[in-house]
């Protein structure tokens, strides 16, 4: 039995139940303690993976095919690490953020935030540790329900509409995924990812399973043009929830997509399918950035930026499906860059949304023009936003730079140079909306501007700053993280020597 692995699942779920039961004034503190334990156990799993390589666990002593196998390799470890860093700082931020939510409907929103958040955290861990297709389906649903519960916390008309739209897409997406699981089970008689990797053949039915599963997961990842539900949901939720959704939740379904395209479907995908996904990514960058540039509200701008940044994750697929003769070197490079983008976007975007929460508290609104003069009032927060912007734009030495450099290099090397237009152009567009976002903060306040009413807690500012700093730091310490990612060879490519 592996204590860290099982504990990292047990702690957040048990914590979620506990937080439901305890009196109101203890909820926040207990969540903070559970967060510390959960993040610690996740780091324990990461350490084991670094020490022993791939970790396998038969939950309850039952192995596949009867039981549910848990497994952690380098890719799982990187995602666990990301969730631990974002989760811990987010819990700290939420601890102070929800202090002002102390009457009526707001108090209820606050008391429900804690159990939903721990449930979401536990589900994310379950996702990264699952080695079983059906288990992944259940986890996808858990993540979806927890995320929607978090979106609709405040119960206003706006969030209910956004939550409803999100729910429909999430359910349709998981049903589509489940249909693919059923088809695969019908053909190969197993749900275990490891066994399926060896069994899968390139026949029409497997290809059909690949299509429905990919489409379902793309819906949940909000890849253009299936992104329409994301901006209202991410922008209307409370600040900590927006950060969770953009940083972690959309990456969950993308993680399954990675596992499938590099595992079961590695020999099934055709260049045309890869191309289509690449084109969707290009569309996401253009459309998301264009929308971000014309938003008048800060959180809508950041939410559309998520749509754009998710586009970068798609260039991996045409390279994987289209450049088989390159010996795997460019596929590997693209995969590394893409996962690095997942990581750096999670840190930068969480930081931006948390900062947006501070801006809203200080300025009383999230309209960009109400941000005038904030650079004097909240210098640390505005600095944090600029720092997160550096990583999103992909400027050295940030994590975003490493990610985009690897993707760009793989795109050029594999001969599909045309994607570079979008990789570079997307960076310029990001610079554009980052400028728009920060510009108003540096303008002078004018007569007739409303007072800046709210005060913010320094701990919240430091939490957002720590996330932005982490986003830059992972660019400086990239080699170590990339080594962890490659433990257990999760992408099935060994590089040039194939």
């Amino acid at each position, binding site marked *: 039995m592996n204590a860290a692995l099982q504990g990292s699942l047990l702690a957040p779920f048990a914590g979620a139940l506990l937080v439901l039961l305890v009196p109101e004034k203890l909820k926040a503190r207990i969540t903070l303690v559970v967060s510390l334990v959960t993040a610690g156990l996740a780091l324990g799993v990461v350490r084991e993976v670094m020490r022993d390589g791939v970790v396998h666990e038969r939950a309850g002593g039952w192995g596949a*095919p009867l039981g549910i196998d848990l497994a952690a390799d380098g890719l799982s470890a990187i995602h666990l690490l990301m969730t631990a860093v974002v989760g811990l700082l987010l819990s700290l931020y939420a601890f102070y953020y929800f202090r002002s939510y102390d009457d009526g409907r707001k108090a209820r929103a606050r008391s429900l935030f804690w159990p939903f958040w721990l449930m979401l955290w536990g589900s994310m861990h379950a996702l990264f540790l699952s080695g079983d297709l*059906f288990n992944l*389906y*259940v986890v996808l*649903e858990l993540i*979806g*329900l927890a995320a*929607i*519960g978090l979106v*609709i916390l405040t*119960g*206003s*008309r*706006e969030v*209910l*509409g*956004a*939550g*409803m*739209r999100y*729910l*429909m897409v999430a*359910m*349709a997406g998981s*049903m*589509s995924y*489940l*249909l693919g*699981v*059923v*088809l695969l*089970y*019908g053909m190969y*008689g197993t*749900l275990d990812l490891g066994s399926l990797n060896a069994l899968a053949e390139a026949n029409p039915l497997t290809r059909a399973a690949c299509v429905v599963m990919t489409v379902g997961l793309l819906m949940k990842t909000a890849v253009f043009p299936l992104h*329409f539900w994301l*901006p*209202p949901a991410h922008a209307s939720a409370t600040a900590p929830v927006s950060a969770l959704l953009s940083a972690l939740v959309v990456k969950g379904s993308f993680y399954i997509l990675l596992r499938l395209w590099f595992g079961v479907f590695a020999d099934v995908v055709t260049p045309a399918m890869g191309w289509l996904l690449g084109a969707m990514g290009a569309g996401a960058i253009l459309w998301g950035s264009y929308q971000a540039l014309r938003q008048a509200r800060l959180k809508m701008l950041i939410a559309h930026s998520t749509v754009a940044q998710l586009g970068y994750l798609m260039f991996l697929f045409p390279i994987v499906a289209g450049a088989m003769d390159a010996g795997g070197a460019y596929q590997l490079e693209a995969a590394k860059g893409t996962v690095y983008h997942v990581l750096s976007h999670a840190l930068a975007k969480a930081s931006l949304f948390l900062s947006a929460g501070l801006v809203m508290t200080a300025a009383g609104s999230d309209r960009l023009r109400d941000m005038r003069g904030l650079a004097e009032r909240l210098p640390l927060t505005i600095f944090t936003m600029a720092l997160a912007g550096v990583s999103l734009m992909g400027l050295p030495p940030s994590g975003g730079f490493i990610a985009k450099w690897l993707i760009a290099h793989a795109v050029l090397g594999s001969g599909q140079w045309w994607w570079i237009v979008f990789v570079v152009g997307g960076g310029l567009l990001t610079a554009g909306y980052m400028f728009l976002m920060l510009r108003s903060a540096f303008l002078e306040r004018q007569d007739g501007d409303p007072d800046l009413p709210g005060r913010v807690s320094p701990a919240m500012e430091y939490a957002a700053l720590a996330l932005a700093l982490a986003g830059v730091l992972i660019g400086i310490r990239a080699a170590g993280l990339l080594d962890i990612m490659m433990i257990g060879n999760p992408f099935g490519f060994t590089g040039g020597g194939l």
Partner: protein
Amino acid sequence: MDSLILYSLAGILLFCTGLYGVFFIAHLLKRLMAMNIMAAGVFLILIVIARRNAEAFPDPVPHAMLLTGIVVAVSATAFACAIARRYVDITGRTGVDEEDAS
């Protein structure tokens, strides 16, 4: 074998019908029903797959998956009903309009 194909096709037809409803019907309750029709399509295929080898006993694994799937679908539907109810109470409308999105 023929009946297996027939049931599978029926399942896929149900799935597509539901998918259309989820995306193109405005009324919330109808969309929820469409979601459940989608699920019913997948579940039907699961039942078919349990008998795919024409052995004396059907394969129990798809049945277990089916039960789990039903539990998930019921909980999700209940959750969605609660949200839809509150939404209708607050807005007095039965559909989520595009004007909310912008």
